[in-house]
């Protein structure tokens, strides 16, 4: 009994600090997270320097020298997200074409409302898809981000391996344990299994976010906010420009 408890304690201790240990290279075929494809590059259809997100991509593309030449090469895990705000014109057709674009590049529709559509596209075609979306309307605002999750991914990967090793060890102990010991082991086994499932889910989500970039397109409604980022010319006639004023035809008095 004492030996079993000591063994559980030791295994738990090893698993708890697993994140800080150096592990052997990932080799488990059952790993939910396959290495993601290479990130977008100008060679994939982008316009280096010609598009606002080109600088973001340049900074985050693996292989781009980011430090001393002798620094070890680490594959970066990046989650690309883009938010585009388009002027309101032919919204329905615009939403349809963005949705169709997602399918044409091997992606899929994630969400759609009356004025917004979110698509997921393979990371390798993110640049191309973003360029195509811009052709669907007048882009008022653009926000492209690349979130580096390399550390989080690696840490999760190591912790998952440790947890699996612990589960295997506990299962071995369980085979030779007495009834009372078996209860304690099963309790611990249940906790570890739960941890493994949670980490697998998280890793799967991360892998999905890395493999498929998210593009959200919003057709901006008329700005009702009286306080604006930029001062406006205080000229009433400028404010009155637009279809509402033009088409609101006054009937002549007899």
């Amino acid at each position, binding site marked *: 009994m004492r030996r079993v408890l000591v063994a559980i304690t030791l295994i738990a201790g090893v698993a708890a600090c697993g994140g800080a240990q150096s592990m052997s290279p990932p080799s488990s075929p059952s790993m939910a997270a396959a290495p993601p494809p290479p990130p977008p590059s100008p060679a994939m259809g982008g316009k280096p320097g010609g598009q606002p997100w080109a600088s973001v991509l340049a900074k985050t593309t693996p292989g781009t020298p980011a430090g001393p030449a002798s620094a070890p090469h680490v594959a970066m895990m990046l989650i690309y997200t883009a938010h585009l705000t388009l*002027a*309101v*014109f032919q*919204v329905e057709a615009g939403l349809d074409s963005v949705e169709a674009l997602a399918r044409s590049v091997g992606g899929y529709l994630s969400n759609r409302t009356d004025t917004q559509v979110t698509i997921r596209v393979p990371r390798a075609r993110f640049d191309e898809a973003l360029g195509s979306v811009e052709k669907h309307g007048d882009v008022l605002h653009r926000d492209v981000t690349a979130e580096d999750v390399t550390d989080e991914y690696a840490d999760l990967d190591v912790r998952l391996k440790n947890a699996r090793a612990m589960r295997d060890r506990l299962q071995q102990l369980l085979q030779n344990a007495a009834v009372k010991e078996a209860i304690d082991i099963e309790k611990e086994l249940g906790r570890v299994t739960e941890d493994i499932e949670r980490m697998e889910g998280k890793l799967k989500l991360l892998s999905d976010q890395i493999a498929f970039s998210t593009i959200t397109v919003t057709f901006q*409604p008329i700005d009702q906010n009286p306080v604006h980022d930029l001062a406006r010319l205080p000229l009433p006639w400028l404010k009155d420009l637009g*279809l509402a004023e033009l*088409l609101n035809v006054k009937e*002549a008095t007899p």
Partner: protein
Amino acid sequence: MRNLLQKVALVIVLLAAAASVGCGRPFDIKTPSEMLELKDQDPPFAYRAMTPDGVVVAMRVVDDDRADLGFWEHAVTLRIRELAGYSLLHESDVTSHDGTKGKELVFGHDENGKPYVYKVRVFVAQGRVFVLEAGGAKPQMDRYTPVVDWTMNSVKVTCRALLSPVFASRTCNRW
């Protein structure tokens, strides 16, 4: 001889008075047969005409000599595009019928889920800003494109006539 001189002087005075008073718009525009010019329109519209199915062409005249064409073009674009959320479809240089250089901005915007087109031409002349607008639902605007363009192209914002400087007016309808 003295009598003749008096008559000539009187005619000149009357003409000058008519020119200075001004009885029309400071621009000229032709209304096509497919449109009806609307009377008694509230300022700032100095002219407004429409087709039976709702395509409207209008002119605003703003007395403001503080800036040039580039300034007003930028101001109009910002106001319509960034504040009202209109989509800028096209912009180009245009010339009025009298040869004044201007800018044309073509916008698109959905109203109640339907696409509309809104054209704006800006000219600067006579110390004024001339804002020529045309708009309507996209199918109607597409159908009336030749009529709308013909109307917009007929606009004169300055007069090149020989006598216009003589009467101290550079406008088109005041002499």
